[in-house]
């Protein structure tokens, strides 16, 4: 079982990404998946969480993810907002930032950085990092194929928008792969 926690702000689409990743895994990847948002009275602007569970076994347990394998952070300004809660030794943090170095000093865990906002801005004209983060994830964890993610993105939005986002994902993927 791979457990992923997404950090974003209400309105930034972190849950959309967690859900599309689940769709990619389950509809196109032959992997069982479950995705759910953090459920709360949070309003737009407030820090929010999303969760994805991936597993080769059927997933029947709906309880919370307390100790994630991956933490994906859509906006580095959220670092103070609980990013480091419940981390395991081998949790990987995937962070949208121009510069991951300072964060590496703050935690013992592996921190993978990617400037997803920049890529998104360049490709789509919008600073929405949510989908691009999947590219970074796919680069460090190969359970869900990039191919499957592309298909799931295509299912989720208009083809024109999807294509652009796929490009973002791809570019982020390669950038992270190279940096590894």
């Amino acid at each position, binding site marked *: 079982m791979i457990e992923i926690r997404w950090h974003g702000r209400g309105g930034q689409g972190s849950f959309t990404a967690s859900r599309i990743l689940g769709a990619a895994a389950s509809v196109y990847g032959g992997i069982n998946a479950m995705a759910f948002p953090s459920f709360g*009275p949070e*309003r*737009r*602007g407030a820090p929010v969480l999303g969760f994805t569970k991936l597993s080769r076994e059927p997933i029947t347990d709906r309880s919370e993810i307390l100790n994630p394998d991956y933490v994906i952070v859509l906006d580095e300004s959220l670092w103070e907002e609980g990013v480091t809660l419940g981390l395991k030794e081998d949790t990987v943090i995937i962070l949208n930032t121009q510069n991951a170095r300072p964060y590496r000093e703050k935690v013992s865990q592996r921190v993978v950085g990617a400037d997803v906002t920049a890529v998104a801005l360049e490709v789509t004209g919008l600073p929405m990092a949510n989908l691009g983060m999947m590219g970074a994830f796919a680069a460090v964890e190969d359970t869900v194929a990039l191919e499957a993610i592309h298909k799931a993105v295509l299912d989720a939005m208009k083809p024109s928008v999807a294509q652009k986002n796929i490009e973002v994902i791809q570019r982020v993927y390669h950038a992270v792969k190279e940096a590894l």
Partner: protein
Amino acid sequence: MVKLNAKTLHNEEYFYGHKACGGCGESLALRHAMKVLGPNTFAALPAGCMAAVSFIYPNMAFTTNAMITPFAATGAVASGIAAGLEALGIDGTQTIGIAGDGGTADIGFQALSGAIDRNDDIIYLATDNEAYMNTGIQKSGLTPYGTRTTTSPAGKNLPGSVNQKKNMFEIVAAHGIAYAATASVGYLEDFLAKVAKAKETRGTSYIHVFVPCPTGWGYPAHKTVSLAKAAVDSGLWYLAEYEKGAFKLNRNPGSFTPVADYLKAQSRFRHLTEEDISRIEAARDAKWENMRRQWQG
């Protein structure tokens, strides 16, 4: 009484630290209503964004007495508070019910009507953001024609909401209420004055304030106040009062700003065609003709 404005208004806050979205128009209206009414206010809020963001244990945003009511019960709970305070001989207080458009025009309509019918000494503040926001932007009885909400989708077959906005102000006036008014957070001084007047009124008062919602309407948060003003300036909303059985228009502009400017600034209206917009303009003109004829006569 001193005219309330940005300069004369005191610095105390009685509604603070809530978890509403940044730029929430509804919270702006609440903030000022509480400021005018003061620390001895008992506020009763039904389910809705304002209740949801202000009473998240252990985080309490009201500094005065305040409570959440059942969604349908704003008027009744407020009545009960006022009656209880009166029976206990606790003077110098003010009871206000504060409900959204859904809580006012739909599920809380009956309890409001009952309170007016009894002429209980309460203020009822309807904060109208034209949809059920707390549950995620569903159509309410105050959602205007042509609005896209999550339960009035706009698409090939439907233009968004197909119902007219319920005319709460006139419905409440038809009850023969002691005092009623419409207001907008785009005209805050007017709003402050109306709350002050309601505070002075014995018996039931009703203020219907128009409050843009960046999240539900789809516009950047910094535009809340200017959009609220645009609604009035384009004639889609109006500032009026009902007192001693008579209506009064507080603003009666010679000309309107284009409704399209107002509508097109919001994603909930982005699908509207030129034709739709003309229809909306025609309805506006008819409404204003009526108001001018009947209320100014």
